[in-house]
């Protein structure tokens, strides 16, 4: 057997982490809400650390419904962009080091987004994961689930449709 030697793990990790950092780091609103992304292989988990400015009901207190909606929408949009980036990276057609502020992947546009509020968001960290249920040439349908203390007790879930950007080669 004459198999090519696999790439060192650090190089692969560095490439994937760079791609994720460039994708997420360029978006001001993600910074505004303080959202971070954990990566295990291709799986992303969005983390929203609790902050006073996220409160919508100061008497309970509870996270603002709009923050919940924004958190889920960002998770869905990043998951969709990431799944496309991942595919290109694995094929070798994309070098994440070429992704700088002027050469970020074009982001999907939200067509519609429906949020199902299951419980009030408590004043603590929240997590979310998205699943791309269908991604065609133009449209994608993405489902997102969000929880706080228990993975099985969701506090919100959402479905959204996105318009996929043209995948023209970057100029």
């Amino acid at each position, binding site marked *: 057997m004459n198999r090519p030697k696999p790439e060192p793990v650090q190089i692969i990790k560095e490439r994937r982490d760079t791609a994720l950092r460039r994708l997420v780091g360029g978006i001001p609103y993600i910074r505004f809400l303080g959202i971070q992304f954990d990566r295990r292989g291709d799986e992303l988990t969005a983390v929203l650390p609790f902050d006073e400015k996220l409160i919508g009901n100061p008497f309970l207190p509870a996270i603002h419904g709009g923050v919940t909606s924004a958190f889920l*929408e960002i998770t869905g949009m990043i998951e969709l962009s990431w799944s496309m980036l991942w595919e290109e990276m694995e094929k070798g057609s994309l070098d994440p080091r070429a992704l700088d502020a002027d050469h970020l992947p*074009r982001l999907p*546009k939200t067509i*519609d987004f*429906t949020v199902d509020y299951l419980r009030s968001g408590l004043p603590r960290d929240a997590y979310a994961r998205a699943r791309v249920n269908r991604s065609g040439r133009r449209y994608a349908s993405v489902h997102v689930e969000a929880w706080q203390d228990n993975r099985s007790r969701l506090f919100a879930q959402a479905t959204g449709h996105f318009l996929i950007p043209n995948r023209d080669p970057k100029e």
Partner: protein
Amino acid sequence: MADPTPAQRFIEAIPHSRALRMHLEEIGDGRAVISMPWAEELVGDPSTGVIAGGAVSALMDTCCGAAVMSYPGAKGTATLDLRIEYMRAAKPGQRITARAECFHATRTVAFVRATAHDEDTSLPVATASGAFTMEGAK
């Protein structure tokens, strides 16, 4: 300024509404108008400077909640579900204004519709419809 109504206090007491610098323009009888300025930190797409959909949905959610709170007899509310449709990108730099109407409420549920415009009032930036819990209505 007139005495703040419960609905006015409702928006002013919300930390996230303050963080987004929301301003209550009109309220009463199941209707609310709330606006929010464009801000660099709310940009969702750095290549265009367009505000993030999530920031628009936070405005819509607040406006819908305020409309429910101003419905006669309402004492409290929470979002059950909210659907937003994004018709077009909001122009960078322009103020966004949401208008919500609670067009029907039972003792337990309020039904709300909303639209959001930038300074071009012809085509909305987004529309929303949702169901909210209704506490205290007869």
